[in-house]
């Protein structure tokens, strides 16, 4: 079969089982678009801004576990995609991002819409390629999907000059069956000696704590994690990225940890004697002050990325391997050992944890008809029976969504945890809705974040993606305002949003339904009405309490046991 580069690219996508490409056309990718146009298997979702395309593919990938695919043009197409690529990179999301490039003969000549895409994206991708010869295209695509989805996943950029996809140049095409890279062999299986050492430490713990992260979600190991925790009856906390990997409604779950973690989770971390870190990377938002972090704990760390181990916190028993494989090896060893050995100590530890839990650190004060943002999230949880896909933007609303929407399943919580990208929520929600058209998909956002990618409301209409937007509109860049209140003596520099649009009209002008909710007593009714409109995107503009803060809070520089509670 003789094909052009454009056709080869499309065939590669088909061979990889790609159902959709999120993209935006332009000069350098016209040949590819022409090839896409002449087939029906791979669908194309036309976004309104390349950043939206990458976040959409990212939301799709987070919700499905499959790689997201993006197609953008050279120059500004590629630079607009960079924020999305960096977002995916920080959260280890598998993406294949195809960027058009000026023809090879013009590279380096400052040609129209030329930018060094490989150079610009190098620090924020897992790997990238410039394909200079059409004969290398199929193999490069195979490598791109392989690298993006194996080991610690991440985005891979494939930069393709226009002449490489020239429809007049036909070459024989065969998609490689397999790929092998002499320089890339991710470790999947953990070292059995280390695993035994870890199990010995784990079953003998007196004040254990399981701290699991996004690696469990990415590694599809939620089931193994749950069995592990239940077998031992140990308390477990999840990072922001790990929410849903262990059912939030379970008694053993202590909530999220870290800067806005629960009192019981953070105190448990601080006082534990054995910390079992699983697919988590000791991020600064989790550890607080490193010098004060888990002062009495021996630490076991399971991670697929050796570079994550002992990067921030030096650990006692490192295990490099996939979380799933390592946990599966650990489970029978723990069973053979008869589970946790220090039964009395564990009972005392649980009694201590229950005392901390009694602080009820997530309770908040209500104030008549003023809408509390936490209340809105709780009601969303109730109405969606805790089973929706929830994408969030970045800021206070993100933390409230994480704290008050208890996820019982993995892959349902989609948020930019690492890079903290405002504008992520709406396109990510659309990507998830595209993947799961029959599921409820909610975007929890604020009036600041939503304006960073509002244009994708138009994409939602074109492709009929009826998500529900829950905007917690407090007229402030809330998280900035909160820090200014705490640490800048209330000097609210540029954190107040004046001249906001009428979001109801905005939604309506995009062909959707808009609602403005101003009273606490209207919240539940409005939500029920909105979720009853299964076929419509409903934008709910909740006028929330402008002075509400996210609690608990571990201030920068403090230890996890030094929380501001209210």
């Amino acid at each position, binding site marked *: 079969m003789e094909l052009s580069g454009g056709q080869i690219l499309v065939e590669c996508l088909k061979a990889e089982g790609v159902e959709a490409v999120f993209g935006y056309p332009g000069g350098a990718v016209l040949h590819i678009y022409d090839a896409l146009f002449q087939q029906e298997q791979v669908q194309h979702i036309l976004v309104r801004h390349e950043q939206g395309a990458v976040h959409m593919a990212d939301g799709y990938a987070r919700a499905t576990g499959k790689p997201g695919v993006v197609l953008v043009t050279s120059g500004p197409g590629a630079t607009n995609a960079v924020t999305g690529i960096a977002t995916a990179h920080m959260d280890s999301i598998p993406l294949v991002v195809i960027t058009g490039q000026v023809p090879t003969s013009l590279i380096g000549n400052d040609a129209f819409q030329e930018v060094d895409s*490989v*150079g610009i994206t*190098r*620090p924020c991708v*897992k*790997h990238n390629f*410039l394909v200079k010869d059409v004969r290398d295209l199929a193999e490069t695509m195979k490598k791109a999907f392989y*690298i993006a989805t194996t080991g610690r996943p991440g985005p891979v950029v494939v930069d393709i000059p226009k002449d490489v996809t020239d429809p007049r140049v036909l070459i024989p095409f065969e998609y490689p069956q397999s790929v*092998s*890279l*002499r*320089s*890339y*062999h991710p470790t999947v299986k953990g070292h059995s000696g280390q695993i035994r050492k870890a199990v010995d430490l784990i079953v003998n713990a007196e004040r254990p704590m399981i701290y699991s992260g996004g690696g469990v979600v990415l590694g599809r190991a939620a089931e193994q994690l749950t069995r592990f925790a239940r077998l031992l009856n140990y308390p477990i906390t999840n990072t922001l990225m790990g929410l849903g990997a262990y059912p939030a409604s379970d008694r053993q779950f202590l909530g999220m940890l870290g800067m806005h973690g629960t009192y019981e989770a953070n105190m448990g971390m601080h006082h534990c004697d054995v910390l079992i870190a699983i697919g988590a990377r000791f991020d600064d938002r989790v550890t607080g002050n490193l010098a004060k972090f888990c002062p009495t704990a021996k630490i076991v760390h399971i991670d697929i*990325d*050796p*570079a994550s*181990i*002992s*990067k921030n916190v*030096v650990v006692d028993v490192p295990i490099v391997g996939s979380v799933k494989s390592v946990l599966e090896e650990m489970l029978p060893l723990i069973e053979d050992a008869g589970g946790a050995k220090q039964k009395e100590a564990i009972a005392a530890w649980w009694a201590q944890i229950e005392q901390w839990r009694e602080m009820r650190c997530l309770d908040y004060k209500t104030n008549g008809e003023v809408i509390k943002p936490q209340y809105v999230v709780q009601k969303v949880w109730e109405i969606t029976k805790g089973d929706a896909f929830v994408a969030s933007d970045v800021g206070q609303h993100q933390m409230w969504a994480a704290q008050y929407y208890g996820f019982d399943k993995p892959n349902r919580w989609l948020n930019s945890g690492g890079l903290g990208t405002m504008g992520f929520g709406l396109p990510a929600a659309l990507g998830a809705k595209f993947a799961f058209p029959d599921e409820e998909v909610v975007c929890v956002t604020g009036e600041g974040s939503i304006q960073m990618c509002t244009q994708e409301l138009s994409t939602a209409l074109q492709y009929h993606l009826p998500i529900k937007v829950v905007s917690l509109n407090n007229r402030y860049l809330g998280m900035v305002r909160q820090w200014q209140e705490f640490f800048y003596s209330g000097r609210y520099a540029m954190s107040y949003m004046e001249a906001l649009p009428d979001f109801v009209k905005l939604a309506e002008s995009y062909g959707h339904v808009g609602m403005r909710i101003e009273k606490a007593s209207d919240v539940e009714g409005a939500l029920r009405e909105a979720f009853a409109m299964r076929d419509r995107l409903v934008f709910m503009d909740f006028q929330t309490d402008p002075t509400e803060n996210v609690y608990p809070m571990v201030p920068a520089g403090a230890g996890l046991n030094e929380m501001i509670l209210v």
Partner: protein
Amino acid sequence: MRHIISILIENEAGALSRVAGLFSARGYNIESLCVAPTVDETLSRMTLVTRGDEQIIEQIIKQLNKLIDVIKVQDMADAPHIERELMLIKVQAVERYREEVYRLAEIFRGQIIDVSETSYTIQMVGPGHKLDAFLSALGDIPVVEIVRSGALGIARGPRGMSVPEA
């Protein structure tokens, strides 16, 4: 502590900038960096000199290994090794200095590879500290120009650094 790190990397466009970019992005310092193809011309061998405590060096090695193009990384400090650096140095060699430069070059086993009426250019090979010692021995003899290659390292003994079996 100073470490010499040897890297086998795919000999591809951009490979050098991946390594250099990693160091700048993560705030590691590079004292010197040498790169050239190996016997197998699909591979480049890099020798990199850096400084850092044990934890930093461990991270550097892990992060280097994480680069997709990197095939093998070795910290020379882990085993007996030989370090060599090439220095070309042009010094003023007039009047009383002319004899002195000649004598010093001899003592340090340097070779004079270019001569003019007012200068000598000396080639010297050795570990970095030997080259430094020569420079300080020159005292107040005016140096016109110095070019140093940066350190190269190779392990002692029969074993070479090769591509691991897949």
